[in-house]
């Protein structure tokens, strides 16, 4: 804390109560949570230029993606504006490129820049939804396993162990494949979004469950939990209102790194042809389509979506790494 320049507008931060010391009745301390985030985290944040750059890049890409309908020069979903005569144009600064298609066009005459903006939006949405699903499932099961102990604990953790034997991408692929097999007789245009979200979410819950269980095992023997039990609160309330806030910082770290993984997984599944269909552009489907035209020299169809995906993953990964060091949670 000492020597931190106080940023304009913030009252001097109170001394942050650290976990495990001071007042064990955490609820009192927790009301000050947002303020110490401002002080402690912001300090380590502003110290690293790389992290600030990563955060700016992430903010820029997320912002651009969600404002896509407002800022994109064309609407890739609007079939009326597509013209096959515009197909396969290179970026504006190359040969026969045109200024209205800054990054060129794809095989159907869609503007690459606009499609990237819309595609990033789809990729981010799938990533966010699947991370939320993984958090919900993993945290609930982890809390339950850690708090209940005994048979429930070993049952849940056994499932986690079995699933951990396999890489997440394989699990996602398998769930995706099964869902496609079940629904192959139905037309699934919008539904594929949720198939992807569920496949990816179910593939990544294990790490949350294991971490949360570990912390819960420690927390449940503390006095505040005992006190809550003594005044007759129901276990669900103790788990979610009393223990949960104390396990959130490792969950936040895992979630950030998980987001990068989820975006990559979505792109991979779409690239493999078992994700979204090319009419719903995501970064993965764009790369898949572009890959077919690589040999005819149309490098821009792959290069720009690929670059976007790589930068997004790199930036979010950097943020996650920094968050892990800054929060220094009990992740070993």
């Amino acid at each position: 804390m000492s020597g931190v320049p106080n940023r304009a507008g913030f009252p001097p931060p109170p001394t942050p109560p650290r976990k495990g010391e001071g007042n064990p009745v955490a609820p009192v301390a927790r009301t000050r949570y947002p303020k110490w985030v401002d002080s402690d985290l912001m300090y380590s944040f502003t110290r690293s230029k790389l992290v600030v750059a990563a955060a700016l890049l992430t903010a820029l890409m997320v912002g651009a993606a969600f404002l896509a309908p407002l800022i994109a020069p064309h609407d890739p979903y609007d079939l009326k504006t597509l013209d096959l005569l515009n197909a396969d144009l290179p970026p504006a600064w190359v040969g026969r490129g045109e200024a209205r298609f800054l990054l060129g066009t794809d095989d159907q005459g869609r503007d690459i820049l606009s499609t990237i903006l819309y595609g990033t939006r789809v990729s981010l949405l799938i990533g966010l939804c699947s991370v939320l699903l993984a958090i919900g499932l993993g945290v609930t099961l982890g809390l339950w396993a850690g708090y209940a102990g005994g048979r429930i604990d070993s049952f849940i953790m056994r499932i986690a162990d079995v699933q951990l034997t396999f890489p997440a991408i394989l699990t996602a692929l398998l769930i995706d494949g099964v869902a496609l097999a079940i629904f192959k007789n139905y037309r699934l245009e919008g539904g594929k979004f949720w198939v992807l979200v569920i496949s990816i979410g179910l593939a990544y819950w294990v790490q949350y469950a294991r971490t949360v269980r570990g912390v819960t095992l420690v927390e449940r023997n503390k006095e505040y939990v005992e006190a809550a039990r003594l005044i007759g609160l129901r276990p669900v309330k103790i788990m979610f209102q009393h223990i949960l806030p104390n396990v959130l910082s490792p969950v936040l770290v895992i979630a950030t790194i998980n987001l990068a993984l989820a975006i990559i997984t979505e792109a991979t599944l779409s690239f493999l042809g078992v994700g979204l269909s090319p009419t719903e552009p995501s970064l993965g489907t764009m790369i898949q389509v572009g890959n077919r035209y690589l040999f005819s020299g149309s490098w821009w169809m792959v290069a720009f979506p690929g670059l976007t995906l790589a930068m997004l993953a790199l930036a979010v990964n950097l943020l996650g790494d920094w968050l892990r060091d800054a929060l220094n949670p009990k992740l070993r």
Partner: protein
Amino acid sequence: MLAFAIRRLLEAIVVMLTVALIAFALFRYVGDPVNQMVGQDATLEDRAQIRRDLGLEDPPYAQFARFVANAVRFEFGISYQFKQPVTAMIADRFPATVELALAAALFAVALGILMGVYTGIYRDSWLSKVFLAVSLVGISLPTFLIGILLIYVFSVWLNVLPSFGRGEAVNLGFWRTGLLTASGLKALILPAITLGLFQMTLVTRLVRAEMLEVLRTDYIKFARARGLPERAINFGHALKNTLVPVITVIGLQLGAIVAFAIITETVFQWPGMGLMFIQAVQHADIPVMAAYLLLVAFLFVLINFIVDLIYVRIDPRIRILGRGA
């Protein structure tokens, strides 16, 4: 040691049975096997007859027992898509995946250890920084993008390496190998690098971290004091002690390599099991999916088991712990 091995073996069997149950449920309930076998104009009696012949009227546990018994004998039924026995399809593609995975693992381990040792010893040199930056990129870039990038540079642009397929393969009885022909070896380079890059960065970072740790210890200082040459200290004393975690990680990553081979094989159209699996998923070819799932699960469980045993052999601390339990 024996008790430890038996306990691990029992756990492995439980995992395999769980996976077998999932595969069975897939096989039995997701697609209707009868629909896939008969034509459109089969009568209801024909269908009922086939159902009885296939034993689909038996109670589920009997069917499951039969499924497991068949799986143990490597019988997984007929592919819906290709109308061939799944076992023959796998036998055809297995060597391609194994050769690719081993080449990737070799690339990852050899280069990863070298880079790890170098960055561990010369931590401030510019080359170390380049290595670490490359490894950060390697971790962030998705496998398929790396593949596309390599294809663009080496096949489209420089035109020196093939971009798809396995080259010429030589038949050695039951094993078709691509390692004996020049075109086969050339075709192996790009897929192996693509597949192994992530593991290489992992090994690099791990070896580097372990080297930094070990180089600080007293026995290294003592070795220096004895006047041993740098090479003997770095490779004979330091590297040797970093290898325990490295072996574990490599063993476990071998499974990941097999899983990620799906992506690499798709990018390079490598005729292995991963490509077969992806085509099965795209066409809802359940018998192939079930067989692949069981086979990969078996591979993973086997690798985990072996890694555990090696670990116990190498690290005496675990042996003592195991004896106490």
